[in-house]
């Protein structure tokens, strides 16, 4: 790709301070530790990892819902790390995980979807506003009769549709979807995934799609990044990542998913990782994954691996992979 990507995150670091009082220093949680990636126009970048690996923090930090500790956020080549975000909010929106907590129970669905329009003052008249709200509701498969109802009258899937309509109100170029389907039932998940993909085709939005369900991420994403303890360990296009995972963590993560097919389950030989994810307060020295990695060597315990390009469009941070490829 020769043109500048729509969105770029460069070396994002986000630390949180926890505890601490007059007598003791707060401890630092290294939630996101030097994460860089780009997202092209109309592209879906999937972010997977286990809970606490910092994937949601990445999503919020790049929208500056959290201020990054260091690093740069670029939209269309323009540095927006320290600017007033209001004009940019039009272009970057978010859909949250829990549709029960992210909609104001005292507002009607029409007002919820219309709120971004009011804040950004894009509609000149009441009629125009209502027309636009209706158009948005239709886009997500709801209709005019839903407009004057309250969120509690809706099922989880419908609420998530409202959330998506709200995020789309201002025609964003870029949307962060933070586990948008985790709270939904299986049969409803497919509806929402299909809708997100259709909307992308129609409107050309880019998504940062955060999820822990690898099947879903593979289905919806063009490229996928795998996070472990605040770092991106592997980034690659979705198909090759699943066909040819290189990082030992990606391999383990993929083999850990139970596949809904008895024949495959019987044949499947799992790579079961020992132990638990270490605490991001005190991440391990060297490669962060070495405490659980079946291939860890002395070098992994001492030296943090660099992220290198192992194939076109495929980056990986692992000493073993780099040694094998002679990089």
């Amino acid at each position, binding site marked *: 790709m020769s043109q500048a990507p729509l969105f770029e995150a460069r070396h994002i670091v986000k630390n949180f301070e926890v505890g601490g009082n007059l007598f003791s220093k707060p401890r630092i949680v290294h939630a996101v530790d030097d994460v860089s990636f780009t997202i092209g126009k109309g592209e879906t970048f999937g972010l997977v990892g286990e809970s606490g690996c910092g994937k949601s923090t990445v999503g919020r930090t790049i929208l500056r819902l959290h201020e990054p500790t260091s690093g740069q956020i670029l939209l269309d080549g323009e540095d927006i790390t320290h600017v007033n975000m209001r004009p940019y909010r039009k272009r970057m929106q978010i859909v949250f995980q829990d549709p029960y907590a992210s909609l104001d129970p005292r507002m009607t669905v029409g007002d919820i979807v219309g709120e971004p329009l009011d804040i950004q003052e894009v509609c000149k008249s009441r009629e125009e506003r209502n027309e636009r709200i209706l158009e948005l509701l239709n886009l997500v498969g709801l209709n005019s009769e839903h407009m004057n109802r309250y969120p509690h009258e809706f099922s989880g899937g419908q609420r998530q549709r409202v959330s998506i309509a709200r995020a789309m109100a201002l025609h964003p170029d870029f949307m962060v979807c933070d586990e948008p389907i985790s709270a939904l039932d299986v049969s409803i998940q497919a509806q929402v995934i299909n809708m997100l993909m259709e909307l992308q085709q129609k409107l050309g939005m880019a998504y940062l799609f955060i999820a822990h369900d690898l099947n879903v991420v593979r*289905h919806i994403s063009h490229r996928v990044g795998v996070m472990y303890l605040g770092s991106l360990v592997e980034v690659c296009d979705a198909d090759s990542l699943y066909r040819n995972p290189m990082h030992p963590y990606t391999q383990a993560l993929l083999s850990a998913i139970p*596949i809904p097919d008895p024949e495959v389950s019987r044949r499947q030989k799992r790579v079961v990782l020992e132990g638990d994810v270490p605490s991001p307060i005190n991440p391990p020295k060297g490669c962060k994954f070495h405490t659980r990695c079946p291939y860890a060597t002395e070098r992994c315990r001492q030296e943090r691996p660099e992220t290198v390009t192992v194939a076109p469009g495929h980056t990986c941070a692992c000493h073993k992979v780099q040694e094998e490829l002679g990089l």
Partner: protein
Amino acid sequence: MSEHLLEIEDLKVSFFTPAGEVKAVNGVTYSLDEGRVLGIVGESGSGKSVSVSALMQLLVFPGRVVGGKITFDGRDILAMNSEEIQTVRGKEIGMIFQDPMTSLNPVYTIGEQLIETLRRHTDMSRKEAWNRSVEMLKLVGINNPEQRMKQYPHEFSGGMRQRAMIAMTLLCNPKLLIADEPTTALDVTIQAQILELMKSLREKINAAIIMITHDLGIVSDICDEVIVMYAGRIVERGLIDDIFYRPAHPYTQGLLRCLPRLDSDGSKPLEPIEGTPVDLLALPKGCAFAPRCEKCLKVCLQHQPPVYEVGEGHTSACWLHALEQTGEVQEK
């Protein structure tokens, strides 16, 4: 016919809420033999957890069993008073809950909780109970069990807590183990550990297991038989191969189709089940799945479908089978 370890007949459980009667379980019948692993799948609100809570007499207010019979090991569970059920619950039937943080007591050490379970149900001395507990922790793969016995639940990680929970349920050699979404609160790599543990335990203990889950992947991984529930009823039951390769009920078929799979082609759109989940306060007159079913017949909207045998040990509750088997649908 009392050879089955567990027999549930026409179980009905309702919750009497201010908004009306919620029929959470609406006529469920199944049986389970020793050493078998039965998976119960369904979406939230399908009654899969409620049906086993009734079996343990753990229903919370305003839930009540309104009909049916539960026979466990030849005894009628629903006729037991609270003292009698306590000799069964925790001893002969063990239960693993979804969230191991809320099911362990935070103010007692793991060891105290394990020993208490044993001392309540057996006449072991403290020393014996301690040794047995250590042995169990070792069995479920907890390192340094002696040291771990003295720790509190908050010092355990999520996966370790779930292991401790499993150890606790296994202490008294239960005949039946109920696992209610045991891995839902865990990460995939930890889930894989727990699933592998449960598979290895299957061979070491001779208990029947009921595995409640919404994840068909877990079912295919660990179960022998599957029950698919929708709106408080069993829509299909069969061996895992029947359910995954020859699903008979349109809901099961839809459920299997709508899953994105790692080995599938990502370019095609998914095939969701249209519509919204059923409202248990206003169950339709006929088949509860009819409003979402693409093969819905006229009769489906009017009458509950009976259960049809579609293969050996494979049943499905759908009017379509009447159409297949007799060529016409009889109106009642």
